[in-house]
């Protein structure tokens, strides 16, 4: 039996074609509506215009696109022999603003998508306006971001060699106070326990100890046996190296190195989204992948029991927020404002350059490749995280999200598993 299901209120929409057999999902095809052609729009533009155009790929992870595009240019200069050395200050500020964007994204996903949908799925609705919490957290943390980046969404404050801002401690204090406000909200409302307690538990943390909205979510998921469903290939990949993220791939119990040169894109029949693989194999990207590759103790211990299940995947994304908030505090404390914000006052003119920029976006590794001749872009290539998680698969195996959905008893459950990947339709069909 074939059933079409529209998935909406993600970043854009997607259509899933389910094949059901014997009361279970047997196969799924994922389709996206239209294509916007950002890569083509960039061709012919000045190389720095990518810093303005690529954030417009996505309203929710625009900042990650900015960072990927500035790194692609910086990489191009480095490969051409021009030294690009960021000051610790510029590096710290970029990490801070990126962290803010990830926090914003994860908490919107938690409050706008996951918690209300889970409640609906298992018939445990509270009728609470969770969107109010999402909006509060998001507006508070992006305000901290804007102190350095000018605005969110769609900032272009990262330039080759650093950042355009030149903050004083007045800005740093404001950012600290907004971060503290976010942490306080998190303690009182999201996890219902002091931050230090949560972080100090390490792998000995029992899920039952977590209270607040996150505790409620985990309780419902355990009750519904969601540690047993939603498993995929249990294979993870990370390309970004920043914050506490480390690049590498994780399979079974080993973590090994990766090289972005082996990433391949392929056109998929009947879809505007291209599939991505690494040496012909499919990998999951995102917070769970980052935690597995960095051997994050709490996630590893959960994974031991529940593998790459729905429970582990959802836990990892919220858990990442706690760690990002903690890390961001240290970043702000360590900023030395006497250091330069940008180290390349004028960009040296080069005949041509070719560079790759990688960043860990909210949903996983984001890769930009730029090719520039006489100052103008001749080719631009964007590989977004959702392409990894949503590829249709190949002759050997199903795609990551499809594998996770197969076996579900209902379309509603399968759709919930789909959303646990934090789908971004607009990114996928840039």
């Amino acid at each position, binding site marked *: 039996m074939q059933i079409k299901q529209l998935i909406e209120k993600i970043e854009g929409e997607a259509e899933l074609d389910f094949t059901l057999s014997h009361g279970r999902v047997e196969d799924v095809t994922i389709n996206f509506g239209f294509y916007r052609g950002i890569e083509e729009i960039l061709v012919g533009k*000045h190389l720095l215009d990518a810093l303005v155009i690529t954030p417009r790929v996505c309203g929710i992870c625009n900042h990650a696109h900015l960072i990927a595009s500035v790194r692609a240019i910086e990489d191009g200069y480095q490969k051409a022999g021009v030294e690009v050395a960021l000051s610790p200050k510029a590096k710290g500020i970029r990490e801070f603003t990126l962290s803010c964007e990830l926090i914003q994204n994860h908490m919107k996903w938690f409050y706008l998508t996951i918690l209300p949908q889970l409640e609906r799925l298992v018939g445990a609705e509270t009728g609470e306006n969770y969107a109010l919490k999402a909006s509060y957290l998001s507006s508070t943390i992006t305000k901290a971001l804007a102190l350095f980046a000018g605005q969110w969404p769609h900032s272009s404050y990262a330039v080759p060699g650093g950042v355009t801002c030149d903050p004083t401690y007045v800005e740093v204090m404001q950012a600290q106070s907004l971060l503290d406000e976010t942490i306080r909200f998190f303690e009182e409302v999201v996890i219902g326990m002091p931050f230090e307690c949560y972080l100090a538990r390490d792998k000995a943390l029992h899920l039952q100890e977590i209270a607040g909205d996150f505790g409620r979510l985990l309780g419902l998921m355990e009750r519904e046996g969601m540690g047993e469903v939603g498993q995929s290939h249990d294979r993870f990949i990370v390309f970004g190296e920043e914050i506490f993220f480390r690049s590498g791939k994780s399979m079974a119990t080993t973590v090994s190195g990766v090289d972005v040169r082996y990433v391949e894109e392929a056109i998929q029949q009947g879809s505007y989204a291209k599939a991505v693989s690494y040496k012909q194999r499919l990998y999951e990207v995102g917070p769970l992948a980052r935690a597995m590759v960095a051997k994050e103790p709490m996630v590893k211990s959960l994974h031991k029991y529940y593998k790459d299940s729905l429970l582990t995947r959802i836990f990892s994304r919220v858990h990442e927020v706690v760690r990002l908030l903690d890390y961001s505090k240290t970043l702000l404390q360590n900023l030395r404002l006497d250091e330069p914000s940008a180290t390349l006052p004028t960009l040296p003119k080069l005949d041509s350059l070719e560079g790759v920029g990688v960043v860990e976006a909210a949903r996983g590794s984001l890769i930009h490749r730029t090719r520039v001749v006489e100052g103008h872009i001749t080719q631009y290539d964007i590989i977004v995280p959702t392409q990894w998680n949503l590829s249709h698969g190949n002759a050997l195996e199903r795609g990551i999200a499809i594998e996770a959905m197969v076996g579900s008893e209902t379309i509603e459950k399968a759709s919930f598993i789909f959303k646990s990947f934090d789908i971004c339709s607009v990114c996928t069909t840039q």
Partner: protein
Amino acid sequence: MSKLTLVWVQSISCNGNAHSFLNHPELFSILSHFELLYHPVLDTPYGLTELIESEIPCDILILEGSFKAEGVVKVGVEILPVIESYAKRAEHIITAGTCATFGGVFKQYDPTHITGFCFDEEERVSRYDSYASKLISLPGCPIHPKWLSYVLMMLAQGISIPLDHLHRPQELYGITVHTGCTRNEYFEWKVDTKGWGLKEGCLFYENGCQAPYTRGSCNKILWNDISSKTIVGTPCFGCTEPSFPKTALFHTKTNMGIPATMPLGVPRRAYLTATGIAKSFKIKRLEERVVEYEV
């Protein structure tokens, strides 16, 4: 009195306007004055399928994204005719963002066929006449959440909104982005910035800043309530303008060393005279750093 109904529909978009609005700190107080019946991200009484298949009540239609007659399909249906059917019934149409207003970034993929809802850059499209009487343009890439909220509040209270020839509210677009910029002193005395990453100096002369000829209140009603591009040393890219995005956005085009585009409405001769005088003085304070940190 019953509340006005609100429907927010997307065409070719990045979701940036929806997310910008979600960042409004008083979002739910604003929305409490309306009945939000459909929104692409927020939970609403109706879903996309119902929006397409039935006629949801719609007093205010908010549009996001640029438009193309064919090829923008949602749930198997071309979205433009659906949007037009809502536009016909709506009392007010707000084009939220530069894409919906003028075509914006996505227009550049297919410049002949992709446009804003009623404008193709500055030109009126054939749809214009049908909707002009109820059209409000709120360009910006993305839309400023507060600008949208204040316009919504005015509509809820029946306040008549003075608009310019492109249907932009004069109260928001009557001034330029330059108004209120923290670097104004440097502009007045023609002190150029010495590079990226400095709080000192003006970005108009070399770094591509379009604020003096871009309409918008970015430096009056700040972004995220706290900042703006020019405050953090990023040039204004003219994202509220029909021409957005131009090229070479980090460089000022010049004619014989003078910016090629003049501040809005300023004759070239007036500019040359004023700058000639301003430049003849050396203001020591403006050449120095504002803050010296001890190393």
